[in-house]
């Protein structure tokens, strides 16, 4: 081979080189593996006795201990959600040879639904086979007895005591307190598995869900010595779980009860707020449902019935219901006219029964045929004169109109401590462009002035706005949590407050004029007589909106029954000068706000104000302090 080619490839040489290297590599590998083998023999032969002994001693398992869930009380210490002792069936998959067979046989003794089995199988996947998995919750005494007799036939199945959630007041608080339910796969994906290692339930709706972190507590654990079959022999160490915090809500359960009762089952919602601080004293959504069956898994048929019921009992109308506010908007619109300097309280407008946008032929009607004559702001509110607000809204223009209404929180969630609050609709150019991609027309401003058109409010939004108005323009974020109690015998601490936004009214005189109008509503106006026999002056406003557009078939089909034709509302606060309560009542079907909604509001006021409220307040404080938490733990 010439020298010049030396640096180039030389196949035979490379092959020989490779063989030598492969052999060297192989010898190194064998040498290393011999070292590894020696290492194994040191551990497995020379130190076998030592490790064997340690393996024997190595029988300590760590088991999670679920914390007791915090209790929920109303503002006076009335229990709304408690923990009660119950029994459930648990299966340890490791001890079961034939799981489907076992479940089938077990089902012959204790009823086990398909839902139970589906949930059981889902949970099984997230656990080790020696960990027991809950199968059937809340066994009845009869079921426990039946199982106990046949227990010998079911190795690996045990009856285990646990604390289950119970809602003693049932349907009354289903929408507010909500309920807990079995942890499902969606929950598992979200939560911290370590924290929930021994926990079977989690807050699904309402306060139970919003305050899950406070209510859940911190798990403890115990170290258990087990024998060769993993049967616990004794507890070596135990770190107790830390129970969740007890919550005191702002709700007064008596007021809640009265409010719900006054509805007499008619679909609708009511919200009662203390305008001085935003505490929600009562919130009712009718119809409601019993939350208790949801805790341990509601039967599919029952759930479907609730889900498909025409009056939607599962819907929390307070935060998710959408209503046309109608004339209840008029005090706000009137206030806007004064605040923006477009009207003085004494300015009058002539109501002829019909209002026209200059240059257009479409007529916007008053409620009274032929009109109500010349009215100022107070009369316009008291008699609910549309023309006054048509012309005012037109003067304002939609941009100033929606800017002003925004101050009262319309068109956005109020920020209450519940999950899933609706936004409603505050009519504006931007909203319409975003929703329909269309320009705004002046006629839409005119009807927005009387709370019609695109307007949608949730009862909570309206109540929040009325409360803001009642406190002379000072907004407070509505909330349900009043106090929090940590530990077994800690004192309830007031819940942290959200900083109140700035006052939305510039001139107190303007407020006085609107307040005067609202007082006249219940004295001489649309809801006259409502104040009779009440110790304080009430300020209120009726609202009646058509449920269906007059052009649709629904309207003609029910036109025989005027009672059903309207969505009716009433808003009120009292005492008018120094409000301690703000109320809104919304009924989905009724004749008029004055006829149907106002009497309900009056009953709510009766239930709260005349009993010395200051006294009640002090009582609450002492009751909260004294409420000794000795419920089931």
């Amino acid at each position: 081979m010439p020298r010049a080619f030396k640096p180039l490839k030389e196949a035979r040489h490379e092959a020989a080189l490779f063989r030598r290297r492969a052999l060297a590599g192989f010898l190194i590998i064998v040498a290393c593996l011999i070292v590894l083998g020696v290492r194994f023999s040191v551990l497995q032969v020379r130190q076998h006795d030592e490790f064997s002994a340690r393996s024997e001693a190595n029988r300590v398992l760590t088991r999670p201990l679920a914390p007791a869930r915090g209790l929920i009380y109303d503002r006076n210490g009335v229990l709304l959600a408690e923990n009660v002792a119950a029994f459930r069936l648990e299966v340890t998959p490791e001890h079961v040879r034939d799981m489907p067979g076992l479940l089938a046989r077990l089902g012959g003794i204790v009823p086990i639904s398909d839902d139970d089995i589906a949930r059981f199988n889902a949970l099984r996947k997230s656990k080790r086979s020696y960990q027991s998995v809950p199968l059937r919750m809340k066994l009845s005494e009869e079921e426990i007895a039946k199982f106990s007799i046949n227990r010998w036939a079911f190795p690996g199945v045990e009856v285990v005591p646990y604390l289950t959630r119970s809602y003693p007041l049932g349907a009354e608080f289903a929408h507010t307190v909500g309920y807990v339910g079995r942890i499902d796969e969606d929950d598992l994906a979200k939560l911290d598995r370590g924290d929930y290692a021994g926990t079977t339930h989690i807050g699904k709706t309402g306060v139970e869900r919003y305050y899950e972190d406070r209510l859940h507590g911190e798990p403890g654990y115990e170290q258990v010595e087990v024998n060769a079959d993993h049967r616990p022999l004794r507890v070596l160490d135990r770190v107790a779980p830390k129970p969740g915090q007890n919550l005191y809500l702002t709700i007064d359960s008596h007021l809640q009860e009265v409010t719900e009762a006054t509805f007499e089952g008619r679909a609708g919602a009511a919200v009662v707020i203390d305008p001085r601080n935003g505490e929600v004293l009562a919130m009712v959504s009718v119809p409601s449902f019993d939350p208790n069956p949801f805790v341990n898994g509601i039967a599919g048929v029952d759930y479907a019935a609730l889900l498909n019921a025409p009056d939607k009992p599962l819907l929390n109308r307070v935060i998710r219901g959408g209503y046309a506010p109608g004339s209840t908007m008029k005090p706000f619109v009137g206030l806007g006219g004064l605040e923006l300097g477009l009207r003085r309280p004494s300015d009058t407008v002539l109501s002829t029964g019909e209002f026209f946008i200059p240059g257009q032929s479409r007529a916007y009607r008053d409620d009274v045929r032929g009109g109500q004559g010349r009215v100022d702001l107070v009369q316009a509110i008291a008699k609910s004169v549309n023309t006054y607000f048509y012309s005012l809204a037109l003067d304002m223009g939609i941009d100033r109109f929606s800017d002003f209404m925004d101050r009262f929180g319309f068109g956005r969630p109020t920020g209450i401590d519940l999950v899933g609050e609706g936004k409603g609709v505050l009519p504006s150019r931007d909203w319409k462009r975003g929703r329909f991609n269309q320009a705004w027309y002046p006629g839409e401003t005119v009807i927005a002035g009387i709370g019609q058109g695109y307007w949608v409010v949730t009862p909570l939004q309206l109540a929040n706005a009325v409360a803001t108005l009642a406190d002379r323009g000072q907004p407070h974020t509505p909330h349900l949590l009043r106090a929090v109690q940590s530990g077994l015998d800690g004192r309830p601490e007031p819940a942290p407050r959200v900083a109140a936004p700035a006052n939305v009214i510039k001139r107190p005189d303007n407020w006085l004029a609107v307040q005067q109008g609202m007082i006249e509503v219940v004295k001489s106006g649309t809801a006259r007589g409502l104040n009779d026999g009440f110790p304080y002056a009430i300020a209120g406003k009726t609202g009646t909106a058509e449920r269906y557009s007059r052009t649709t078939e629904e309207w003609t089909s029910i036109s025989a029954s005027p009672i059903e034709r309207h969505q009716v509302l009433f808003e009120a606060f009292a005492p008018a000068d120094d409000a301690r309560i703000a109320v809104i009542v919304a009924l989905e079907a009724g004749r008029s706000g004055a006829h149907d909604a106002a009497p309900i509001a009056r009953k709510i006021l009766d239930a709260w104000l005349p009993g010395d409220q200051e006294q009640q307040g002090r009582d609450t404080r002492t009751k909260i302090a004294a409420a000794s938490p000795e419920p089931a733990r």
Partner: protein
Amino acid sequence: MIDELILEWRHRLGSMWRKPRVDLPLLGALLLLMGVGLMTLYSASDLDRGQVISQALRFVLGLVLMAAIARIPPLTLRNWTPWLYAGSVVLLVVVVVLGEGRGANRWLDLRIVRFQPSELLKLTMPMMVAWYLNGRPLPPGWTTLGVVGGLIAIPAALVAKQPDLGTALLIAASGAFGVFLSGLAWWRIGVLLGAFAGVVPVAWHFLHDYQRNRVLTLLDPEADPLGNGWHIIQSKIAVGSGGLWGKGWHHGTQSRLEFLPEHTTDFIFSVFAEEWGLVGVLLLLALYVFIIARCLWIAAEAKDTYARLLAGAISMALFVYVMVNGGMITGMLPVVGVPLPLVSYGGTSAVSLLAGFGVLMSIHAHRKMVAS
């Protein structure tokens, strides 16, 4: 007509039987190993048939892939090599940029399957090194060595950054073995090892805290019995209590009582050692030695440098798996996430290993064609 078809198919099947594209001794050893793996998994997973079946399906997938790769001539593989290498490095960069995984960014989500591009490099790395060295005069000098060093270091660093030290180690090792087998002079190897020893203290500073802890824990596992030391102590107890003959299949208590972490994946060897004892361990190691030896023999038979280096590097990389995993469970080496080949539960590693054996089968099957 039909007779002709039958005849043709007979001929085809017959030729497949007479000239199989697979090396039967190697295939037999691999099947035996997979059998041991499934059996151990059944015990370690606490008689969970689902896990065993899903692992078996991965084996089937891997075997199909192996058979497919075995039919690709090494020459074709050689032509593809730079592209495959570049592609896998690009995927690796993609993972670093937008990858998602639990704490460690090593997965690429392709909607249907999620896979780790770093697994690809276990194959494309030795391919690239073999391809490059194939075109250079051998034994390599410093220049060649420098280029190969770059080819190895860039993807290895990317994988280590993910952070997946175990895979980075395997990738780097497979590349390094290619260089070793190409006949790198011993004195140069000595210089490199010396330099490496000098770099270790520097590298220490770049390790993640948890990686440092693993090394520190190794030195004194009892000092941290509930944290990192737990793995090592429990594994040693499992291995040591197995004794000479073992506790018997599915009679290991350590794993069943959950004392042993990761006992179906990285620590499955501990379960095997506990249940089958030293005798079982030595037999298993002997099986690995046989496989490595057979692979190296296939490599030596190959008539072209590319095929030789590739086959040799893949065979020797197999040893790294066994050594690092065995060293880990006996407390000789730090806890690095390296599976026991074809025994540990986990799809990507099994499939990429079998793909590697597919390359070996191909080299074996085409040795004569290459020679001619």
